Structure formats: structure tokens, C-alpha cells
């Protein structure tokens, strides 16, 4: 279980996060939403050890995060972020197998085992990339590459998933598939996930709890119906919204109300 206890993250003079606490419980999906610059990515980076909080602690399985080795952290926490530009040609299979590094034996030359291959093939199937496993990564579309990044994270078999805008480049169909995959991992394997997303309705649908951030501070934390209210969203984003219950699923449905041009 991963937990942030009252953390403050600073970049030099700038305070990115102040007094944020969040516990990622097993079997749950937590959505992190908020306007740009709210500190969402900083929270994720603090969670996976990239950034050390100036105050407060990140606790992983009862111990401080900084007491773990890099490899030990990577076996437990997997991060899915926007993919860096690839400057060397690698196949999708090679790319996804990179996720098995943390599980490799200490002997460094470390060729992949049959088990590694099995796991990789399984996640490629789950992310619907099986037929593309021999292709060079740069030949894939943006959405396909994003799925490959998720596949690599799933290949680590980590039980805590941190996702930074995983649906950014995906079409509607694949958006649902990806989040359903994450949801299934949480439900079936007891994984926990934190998902940063700009799509509030997607968050309402897939998340058990929502953390709403603004200017590095937590505005609200709770179930989607508690956090995604008209006043809360208005306070965070500065826009008027209409929130009603989705007719099919019952979760909050957020519709922005734009100033309509007066018709003649």
C-alpha cells in the first residue's frame, strides 16, 4: 500500500504541493484531477520516488519509500507517463520486455527467461498489441505507443500503478479498454491505481475516489459523487458546470456550460 502523508513538494522557490495526504488502498482506483499546474504530476513523481518531498513522507508497505532500493521500488510501483521520444529503433516486444528488468536476477547480462516472455505476451494480448509485437515502436500510431507504455508497466507485475494521463492520445474505444484493464487489475488482483486525467467523466466512471487539487493544495477527497459537485468544480477550474447523474450508470456526469452566442 502506498501513502503520502502531508507532503510538501518544492522546486526551488516554487511550491508545487502543500500538505497533501493520500492513501492508495488495495483494489481501488483513485483519480487525481485539477487544473493545469495543480501539482498532479508532482504528486505522482513523489509517489514513485522521482522527487523527494521537502516535508512529509511517502510510505510504501509500512516503510519509508526512501529506504527501498530502486529495483525494490520498481517491483512494487509501475509508472505510466507520456512516452519519451525514442531515438533508437526497438520492437514492441523489446520495449515491453524492458518492464521485466526489475524482476531480473542480479546477474547482470540477464537474458529474459521463459516466464518473462510469457508475461510480456500476456500483457500484449491484454492491450491488444499482439499482432504488432514485431513492429518497430516508431512505426506505431500515438495511441498504439501509449498502449505499449501501459503494457510495459503491466509487465512489471507491480501492484501499484501510477498513470499520468493514460488516455491522452487514445480513441474512444481504447480509452475504455485501457481503463477497464486497470480497473480489472484492481478488482481481480487487488492492485491499486492512481490516475491523473483531464477527463472528469472518465474519472467519475472508473474511480473509487477522487482527489481534486488546485494550486498544490487538496480541495476535496472522496467518492466521485462527493467531490464532483458543481461548486467544487467551479471553485477548482473556474468554469460553470452542470452535474447530474448519468442515466445509465448513476455516476456524476459533468457537462461544462459554455456562454452560448445569442441567436438572432
Amino acid at each position: 500500500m502506498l501513502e503520502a502523508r502531508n507532503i510538501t513538494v518544492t522546486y526551488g522557490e516554487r511550491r508545487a504541493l502543500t500538505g497533501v495526504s493520500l492513501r492508495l488502498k488495495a483494489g481501488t482506483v483513485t483519480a487525481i484531477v485539477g487544473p493545469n499546474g495543480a501539482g498532479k504530476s508532482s504528486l505522482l513523481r513523489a509517489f514513485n520516488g522521482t522527487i523527494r518531498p521537502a516535508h512529509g513522507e511517502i510510505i510504501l508497505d509500512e516503510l519509508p519509500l526512501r529506504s527501498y532500493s530502486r529495483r525494490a521500488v520498481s517491483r512494487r510501483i509501475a509508472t505510466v507517463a507520456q512516452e519519451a521520444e525514442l531515438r533508437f529503433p526497438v520492437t514492441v516486444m523489446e520495449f515491453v520486455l524492458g518492464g521485466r528488468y526489475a524482476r531480473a536476477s542480479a546477474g547482470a547480462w540477464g537474458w529474459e527467461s521463459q516466464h518473462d516472455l510469457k508475461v510480456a505476451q500476456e500483457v500484449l494480448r491484454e492491450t491488444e498489441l499482439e499482432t504488432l509485437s514485431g513492429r518497430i515502436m516508431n512505426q506505431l500510431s500515438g495511441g498504439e505507443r501509449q498502449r505499449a507504455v501501459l503494457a510495459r508497466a503491466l509487465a512489471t507485475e507491480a501492484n501499484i500503478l501510477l498513470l499520468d494521463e493514460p488516455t491522452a492520445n487514445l480513441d474512444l474505444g481504447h480509452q475504455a479498454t485501457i481503463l477497464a484493464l486497470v480497473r480489472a487489475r484492481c478488482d481481480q488482483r487487488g492492485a491499486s491505481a492512481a490516475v491523473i486525467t483531464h477527463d472528469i467523466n472518465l474519472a467519475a466512471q472508473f474511480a473509487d475516489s477522487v482527489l481534486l487539487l488546485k494550486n498544490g493544495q487538496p480541495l476535496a477527497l472522496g467518492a466521485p459523487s462527493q467531490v464532483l459537485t458543481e461548486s467544487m468544480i467551479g471553485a477548482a477550474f473556474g468554469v460553470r458546470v452542470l452535474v447530474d447523474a448519468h442515466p445509465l450508470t448513476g455516476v456524476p456526469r459533468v457537462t461544462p456550460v459554455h456562454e452560448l452566442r445569442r441567436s438572432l
Partner: protein
Amino acid sequence: MSSRLQIDGSMRTTLRRTLLVCGLLTVLLIFVLVLAAVVGSQRLPLGPALCALTCKSVCGLSPEQQAILFDIRLPRILLAAAVGMCLATAGAAYQALLRNPLAEPYLLGVSNGAAVGTMVALVFFGAYEWSRPLMAFAGALIASFAVYQLARSRAGASPERLILAGVIVTTFLSSAIVFITTLMDATRIRSFTFWLLGDLSGATSKLLTVAIVVSILGTAVLTAYARPLNLLMLGERDAFDLGVEVGRVRLIVFLAAGLLVGTSVASSGSVGYVGLVVPHLVRLSFGSDNRLVIPASALTGSAFVIFADMLARTLIAPRELPVGAITALIGAPLFIYLLKRG
């Protein structure tokens, strides 16, 4: 590049494939080695030469031929192999570490750093033979550190910043070389200028041993770090997330590559393009997995420099060209061709 078939083994690099490729390249290396032993201003007979090389007995060679083979050619060929291995492996390592297919010891200014170190050793500590590789190593490290620091920014070292930083460091060090050269007398200047372009004839046995040991050890160390380099090659942040101790790996690779370049320059001057062309060629042929690229580059680099040196001493025999000129003459057009192929 056409999409590969969905057969396990071409989707990724396996141990079996690596051993096969390295085996073939070893055969190529042996072939080039024998060729270079036999060819020269004095042609040696193939049969007796092969016999002498393998059995270490006389085998029908005249004393003069024995001297040519064992005292002159063989040390030179072995030095060429060591230099080729050092530079190609270091090139492959820099390219993976700096995420830039254009990273190369010469372009990055590391070779010049090593050259300055060697020169300082020659001018100020000439009496101590060990000072040359040591100060070359120091010079290589200082230069690579300078380039890395210059090229870094919040977003990491982009290829453009890296090349820029390399150019700055190279040109600065070139002027340092000119400055030190003025402290030498005229006769030394001429021989030194040629040495700077790559000269494999001055191998003392001690330096040769050091070069061979360092090249093999350095390649072994870098091959051991090939898997983390595979991840670093695709992005520092991703590598960190996936469990690579980025700081530690970067330090070790920089040290190992600096040692390789320093040793190479200390023994034979600045031989350019090997670290650029060889790994590139290897990647185009066999894929980007460093577990294959690093050892394959080592073997191919050795063969390449042995071959280039053979040309260097036969093209305008009895005079010699600097081997660096040959590697540039072959390497530059080859690189342009590779660039255009994309």
C-alpha cells in the same frame, strides 16, 4: 525497415543470436588479422605465416620474415585490434548513455581531452611511461564530464545541445593542443602532428599489454551493463521508473568509456569515426539491443582498424599514412550513406 515476422527471435535479440553473430564476427576478425599479417610492403607467404602464427615455430620463414611478422607486424596488428575495440565499444556506450546515435568519442571532444592529457604527460612527465595512459584517462574523463554538464538542461541532453557542447569542448581543447605544441621543438611538432591523426607504429610492449587488457576489460564491463543501457537508451526517466540506478550506471559507463578512449589515444593518437560508424553499422544490421551491439561493435571495430591500418601502411608504401586519415576516408562517406538510408 520492413516489419519483422512474428517469429520469436527476430522480435527480440536472444542469447543464441548474440553468440551466433559474435561467432561470425570473430571469424571475420581472424581473417582480417591473418590478411594484415601477410600483406604489407613485404608480402609474406600465407602458408608458412599461418603456421608460424599458430605454432609459434619457424615454419619455413626466413629470419627476416620472422622479424617482420613477430616484431613489427603482429604488435602493430594487436594494437590496432585493441584501439578498434576501445573506440567502437566506447562509441556504442556513449550513444546509448547520451541517447544520441551521433555521440562518438571524437565528436564529443573526449578524444581531444585524452590527447591533451597525453601531451601534458609527454611534455612535463616524459620520463614516466605510465603517466601517458593515466593522464589520457584523466583528460578523457574531464572532457566527457564537461560535455555532459554543458549539454544538460531541465529536459535532459537533447541531441542538439550535445553536439553543440561537444563542438565547444573539442574546439577549446584543440586550441589547448596547439598551445602545448608551441612548447615543443620543431622536430617533435611534426611527428606529434602525425601522431595526433592516429599512429599505430609506436607501440611499446608495455603500452600494448595495457591497451589489450583495458580493451577487453572495458568491453566486458560495458557488456555487463548492457541491459540497463538498453533502458537508459530509451529515456532516463523511464529507466529510473523501471528500476535502473541511473546515477550509478551513468558513472560507471562514463568511467569505463573514458578509460577505453584514454587508453586508445595514449597508445595511438586520435583515430576518428570508428566509434561513430561501427556501432551504427552494427545496429542497422542486428538491432539496437546493447547486449549484442556492444560485443559486436568491439569485434567489428577491431577488424575495421586492423584493415584500415593495413591500408595505411600499404597504400603509399614505403611511406605510411596516419590510420586516422584512412578511418576518416572510409568512415565519412560510409556515415553519409548510412544517414541517407535513415
